């Protein structure tokens, strides 16, 4: 197997105000995947991106990106990365084409090469028609696409996307997702931060959940979901039938959820468990009013992890 493209080893970063943005974070990111950094506001996501993109030095620990140490050889790292920050870092007074070509020139491309690549990228992101208009006439989503395109013109091995779709309308969001998937398919490693769980769920092959600068969990989305338990079946019956229904479903370890007034049972076999439960109810002559097979979402994982971390944090002396 290839070497990992990013290694983050025991990195801490404390800001002057005393905030500890990163607290001994260790991560390994394999080549050619979309990696999601998930965490609430202030978790340290942007600080990590800034360190990986050579904008900040870590206080302690080592970070290697595409084979080079970010502190000792930042120039080599910069040749191999692309960064699209939290806001579209584009020039309103320049056209889409000028914005992208300019970044190409700054990556060290010849004028001819920068112009050619910009044309190809504009085609690829479906902005060829708007390419020669100034960006001040663009929508938010179009600006984001230009921003992303500008970071692609240097053909980076690693692309950092800091909340790429925050403040973008749903349709543009789909476009951006499509673009990111395409990049990963072509072999670019994409590291994206997001507060949107569905975005991580949709895009990321692997996910790290971080909070207070520490790693809470890491793995594929499936692994993370498994960690807080598998699917459940939820059944609603008329109130008078709650007890008989529970008795009928006893073989499946059903319990009555008081809060939501539902009968809940674990569904290790998914739809098969559901069918089994319905058959047991049928034999008891009970007709449910509502049935659902519920798989844990990344929301469940995220909330479970960050809540547990908050409790632990609150317990520690400040």
């Amino acid at each position: 197997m290839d070497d990992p493209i990013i290694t983050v080893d025991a990195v801490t970063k404390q800001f002057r105000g005393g905030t500890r943005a990163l607290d001994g974070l260790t991560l390994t990111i394999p080549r050619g995947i979309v990696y999601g950094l998930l965490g609430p506001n202030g978790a340290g996501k942007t600080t990590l991106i800034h360190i990986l993109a050579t904008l900040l030095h870590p206080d302690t620990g080592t970070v290697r990106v595409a084979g080079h140490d970010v502190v000792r050889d930042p120039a080599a790292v910069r040749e191999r990365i692309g960064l699209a920050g939290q806001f579209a870092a584009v020039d309103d007074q320049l056209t889409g084409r000028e914005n992208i070509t300019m970044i190409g020139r700054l990556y060290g491309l010849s004028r001819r090469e920068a112009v050619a690549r910009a044309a190809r990228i504009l085609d690829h992101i479906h902005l060829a028609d708007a390419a020669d208009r100034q960006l001040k006439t663009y929508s938010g989503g179009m600006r984001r696409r230009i921003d992303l395109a500008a970071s692609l013109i240097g053909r980076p091995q690693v692309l950092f996307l800091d909340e790429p779709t925050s403040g973008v309308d749903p349709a543009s969001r789909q476009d951006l997702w499509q673009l990111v998937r395409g990049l990963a398919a072509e072999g670019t490693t994409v590291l994206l931060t997001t507060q949107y769980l569905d975005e991580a769920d949709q895009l990321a092959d692997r996910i790290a959940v971080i909070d207070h600068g520490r790693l809470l969990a890491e793995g594929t989305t499936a692994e993370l979901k498994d960690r807080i338990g598998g699917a459940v079946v939820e059944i609603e019956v008329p109130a008078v039938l709650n007890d008989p229904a529970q008795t009928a479903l006893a073989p499946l370890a059903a319990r009555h959820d008081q809060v939501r007034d539902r009968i809940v049972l674990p569904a290790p076999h998914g739809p098969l468990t559901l069918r089994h439960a319905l058959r047991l109810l049928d034999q008891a002559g009970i007709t449910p009013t509502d049935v659902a097979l519920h798989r844990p979402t990344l929301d469940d994982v995220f909330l479970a992890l960050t809540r547990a971390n908050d409790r632990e944090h609150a317990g520690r002396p400040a």
Partner: protein
Amino acid sequence: MTTVIPIRRHGRAFVHVGVITRRNLLANVRLPDVLILSTVQPVVFMLIFLYVFGGAIQAALPAAAQGEYIYWLMPGILAQFAVFGSAPTAYGLNNDRTTGVLDRFRSLPMARSAVLIGRTLSDLVRNSFILTLQVVAGVLLGFRWRNGIGGMLAAIGIALAFGYACSWLMAYIGLTITNSEAIQAAIYMVVFPITLTSSVFLPTQTMPGWLQVFAEHQPITIVANTLRGLTLGQAALPAGHTIAGETFLALTWTAGIVAAFAPLAVTAYRRTTS
């Protein structure tokens, strides 16, 4: 192991400076309202001082001004504008920082100084344009150079060079103060007192003694005197001063400001994040 080609580095830095300069200039040209306003403002300044104060000031003027305030005011205003005209360097960099553009530039394989050199150069080009219009306005208001066109051009050169040096000071301010309103306050707090307590608008000899000492030795007076000497001749200078001596002092200040603030600004740039 790496694909970095060190020989290309030097040439690349020039390209980067050119790309950044062009980018900033394009923004200037495509925001004509900003350019027009920043051109009109110094001309309005000149008109106000000429017509409001001019009459009262006539008597205090040295012989070389021949009783016409415009002769005194014109070189002074050029010196003042050199300082005022450098303020957009601070705003431009601050704006690039807040929009995340500096973050992107810093993540690119380019020389750390290229963004700052490009910014100060584009502001120099912009100021050359505005200064030329100011000279034209001055000539229309009755100013004539008495020391040959060479002296006039040298004066413009000194004013632009000093303004360029001030751009590095402004770059440092723009990168170290994060709030744009605070930047504006800081600039006005420094620029207004320092241009008023100089020989820009009035000869310094009517100021109280302690202020005179400051006013006569501060850089804006020195630049204003240099411009007067170069455009009007030796007679426009205070007793005991020579054109060559003033020019040397003005250039020394210019070089000194760059030497002090260029490294500070580059260091601040390295540390900046949005």
